[in-house]
């Protein structure tokens, strides 16, 4: 898949023909330069992503400003393309993408976010996941936050007296596993150490990264289709 994109680069060079295309190329360069210097996504891929962004936000072309994907539009992308289902997590993913907190994912934020999704190193992914899970943004994942994120993770047994008992226990198990400094909450250092020790814990509190299948499907579609346009 990557190859198809790389192969597009001669074509991109000859792009400044139409006005719209020139803008895309320009933006692509700007984004690459500004935000993604050691960018994992190659330039042609960035351009593909940008074009995809514009198909998702058609009116952005007219107004040329701070607009972009709003919460609902972004969530439908997450749901339909990356198969995410948990409302709360999707909300948090939106927040993580929306770096400037203007309730809208701009083209730059879009490319940056997807760069982590598709080409992120473990380091980047850990930072991103931690941000998603740190619900109140205080730099720690607390017991309460964990409980909140895990509360739907167990099948409710009708026989159980306290249905939350299992969740509470699960939170304690998680803390036992990940809270290295024993302060009853997870700092980034705790999280990082635990994930490095056991990669499976990267998405410990709910899926917030695309799984391999949907991300491959996405790349196939996004990079190829836009090329075909």
């Amino acid at each position: 898949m990557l190859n198809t994109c790389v192969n597009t680069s001669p074509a991109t060079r000859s792009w400044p023909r139409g006005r719209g295309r020139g803008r895309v190329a320009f933006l692509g360069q700007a984004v690459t330069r500004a935000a993604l210097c050691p960018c994992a996504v190659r330039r042609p891929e960035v351009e593909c992503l940008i074009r995809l962004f514009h198909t998702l936000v058609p009116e952005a072309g007219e107004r040329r400003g701070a607009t972009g994907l709003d919460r609902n539009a972004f969530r439908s992308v997450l749901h339909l393309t990356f198969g995410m289902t948990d409302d709360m997590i999707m909300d948090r993913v939106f927040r993580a993408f929306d770096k400037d907190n203007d309730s809208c994912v701009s083209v730059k934020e879009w490319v940056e976010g997807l760069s982590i999704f598709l080409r992120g190193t473990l380091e980047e992914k850990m930072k991103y996941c931690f941000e998603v899970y740190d619900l109140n943004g205080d730099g720690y994942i607390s017991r309460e936050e964990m409980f909140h994120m895990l509360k739907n993770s167990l099948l409710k047994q009708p026989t159980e007296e306290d249905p939350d008992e299992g969740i509470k226990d699960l939170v304690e198990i998680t803390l036992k596993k990940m809270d290295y400094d024993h302060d009853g909450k997870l700092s980034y250092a705790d999280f990082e150490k635990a994930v490095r020790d056991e990669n499976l814990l990267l998405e410990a509190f709910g899926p917030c990264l695309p799984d391999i299948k949907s991300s491959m499907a996405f790349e196939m579609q996004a990079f190829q289709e836009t090329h075909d346009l």
Partner: protein
Amino acid sequence: MGVTLTRAAQWTSAGSGPGTLEITPLNESLLNEIIKFTEGFHYRHPQEAAFVFREPLEWKTRLDYSVFESGYEISGTTVQSEDKDKDGQPLLLLTASTIRVCSFGELSRLLSVATEKKLKEAQACLEANRDPIVKILGPGYGTVEGEDMSMLRLLEKVKKDDDPETEIKMKISLLLQQLDMQLLNSSLKHISREVRLTPTSVKNEVDLLKHFSGKGEDTVLESLEYTSDYEFSNGCRAPPWRQVHGEICYLIVKPHDTNPLFITCSTAGVFLNGGREKEKDDIEYERKSDIYKDLVTFLRERSPKFLENMAKQEYTFFEEPVHEKQQHLEIVDTEDSGQSQKFYDCSEKNVFEKMKSPPVKGKPIDKKLEPSLKWKDTGLAGSQDAAKKDIKEEKEVRPISHELKKKASIISSGSVKAQSAAKRKVSEKSEEASESSSESEEDEEQPERHQEGNTDLPSEYWQIQKLVKYLKGGNQTATVIALCSMRDFNLAQETCQLAIRDVGGLEVLINLLDTEDVKCKIGSLKILKEISQNSQIRRTIADLGGLQIMVKILDSPDKDLKCLAAETIANVAKFKRARRTVRQHGGITRLVGLLDCVSMGLANPTPSQAKDIEIARCGALALWSCSKSTKNKEAIRKAGGIPLLAQLLKSPHVSMLTPVVGTLQECASEPSYRLAIKTERMIENLVKNLSSENQELQMHCASAIFKCAEDEETRDLVRQHGGLQPLATLLSNSENKELLAAVTGAIWKCAISRENVTKIIDRLDGVRLLWSLLKNPHPDVQASAAWAICPCIENAKDAGEMVRSFVGGLELIVNLLKSEHKEVLASVCAAITNIAKDEENLAVITDHGVVPLLSRLANTNNDKLRRHLAEAVSRCCMWGSNRIAFGETKAVAPLVHYLKSDDTAVHRATAQALYQLSEDPNNCITMHENGVVKLLLGMVGSTDEILQEAAAGCIANIRRLALATEKAKYG
């Protein structure tokens, strides 16, 4: 409730008149359920609680009028409730000790008044009112068997008129039916835990206990007798009129430490009865104790001495009811080679298989096959579990459940005695059957050691159980957390492994492998990989179809997954059935595919290339395990595995080389592989790795060379690549017995080439080193060294001189004839044959008493030993009066019988020995007496010239003697 009360509740059957409810756990729980229902009734259904029963429930109460307080009118000993029905009758009336209650409301209140006596009250109430529903709702609602139409009728009625009472009745009826269902469900749980003894199970248990009863300190009981010798055709000893109550037989048991116990065994269990009065034949049948589920449990409870001595015997036992379906025969091969060495079966496989040495002392002899008679070790476990199992087995039609198999194989040395001769016969038969297969079951069944008593389980057990619960009921997030947390336990520990299995964790883990979620699969495999070190777990994984799924995972694009799956297969495929499963599901081809690794030769592989190398390593590990089956060896070859293995053999890493060489040496038992190892130039690398730091790798290399050096060209290649030097070095400085055995094996084969001996081994002082290994305490090493010595002597220059130069060497080897190991004996006989070729040495070993030692061995039926022994005898006859000495030490007669063996090599050696022995007239007489002529005459017609000649020579000697005698007699 009606159905439960008639069907499930245990009414005393023995008594006459109105039945009483026995105090059994089942009844108690039923009563408690009913009480709970009634107590809460007026809160939950206030309207229905006020409903007046058609007839009051009436029973004899033990409650005193004094307990009634507010809400009741008390006058003297009469108590009335303040609530009255529409006719002004009190809803509750207590006169003297009779109580009448007319509504649920009053019942609930009564129960709360009764406090701790409520159980008794409920019992009394139900005993007096066998079908309470009839009294509550009217006769139309009586409990009927089969289809119950009352609800339908009621529904009709409700539809027709709007009598509020009918509606209430309907509700109550519904509620009661609900309760009934609930009670039935809970009683089902109880019943499923109950035991039903059968006459057979009782008989077996009694018979077993009898084996361990008698006078003396160590027995478990002093005596154990039936009260009646007569056994009815159904296996019961109780008189028929007691049999109807489920009683099977009565026992008088005399423990060491208490008075004799009179015991009833009934289908419900074992309990104490009233005993037999003196001079009276009748037993008092009334039950005097709790019911125990079998005799052992009962006695354990009653006699501390019994418990103590049972523990001393180091096993407990129990019988399962013998149903034909459940009887099964489990065949377990005792061969326990594992990854270790078994040299002798390579070149002389058939011979070895036939003479397989008897099991080492303390090892169960009859392990190969166990009928349903089950043994369990350690005192604590057992009976409680037994009950469970019995029930389980009765339910399961599957004859070879996993549990059973394990049990069946558990047998301690002491138990051998108890095995009946008949069983042994069967077992021998199956032994032969199992040996006819070229594959052997390396994986020994482990005795189940884990304890069933809940109190003894460590906290990990419960924690793991909880985690499994989350695995079962969690989404993928919870599952991953539970999996990661489970890995923090010490999964190498048996408690943890069995904890996972016991709560159905393996099923869940294997199910996870079938999901789409990569993380769950990885997490699950990481655990399976660890716990599959345990042989019971391995079997369960195979039983649950785990191998098929793991084979499928080998196709996954995820490299981690591939590695883990291959590693887990490597662990699980340690027994025959598993290896077959892997092959039959295309696993071998896929595993061979993993070996194909282009980045092998790279000096600095990228992380991704390193991963590919790791995949290849895991593939080799799995193939190593699989390669213990002949068909898999073939499958590996067909899948193109040999060139790939040759490629991997160039790796510099021990972790890669060990499984690769392991696989090669395993497969080198096949001629096709031996050829390929030679032609693919693998000998060079094998030789190179003899100098590895890693002893395991050295051992596999040596044993691969051992197997391949059957071929002369290969022997030369070993020499040309400088392999003899490291082999000789390994002889001198290794304490590792498997390694020594492998190295001596390799030297043995290499020494067959004269050039190897004369040029190298001799010069390297190899023979002296081999000789010193004869002092090694391990029989494998001794035998292997003695074998290796044979070709060395044969090929060395001035061998006789060399042998004499080893101080005490000849005495040492002669004394090895006192060994108990057949393989050692055979190899030493072979060595002596070679040593005796030198006359001077023959004289020395004769002085060391070789003749009587050889004669002592003559009575053997091991063909390999027979052959080498006969050769040694034949050689040793060449000196002095040894011929006469063999006759005097009674070696001749047994030798004659060797001629009846099926092995032609034995015939040849024996005929030669007899020919030598027949030079002495007394020996001729012995031979003749043992019918040698007829046997030899047959052999004269053999195509084997040496045999022919020896046989003819022997006959000639005998004939000549006969003629001489006749001449002397008749002139």
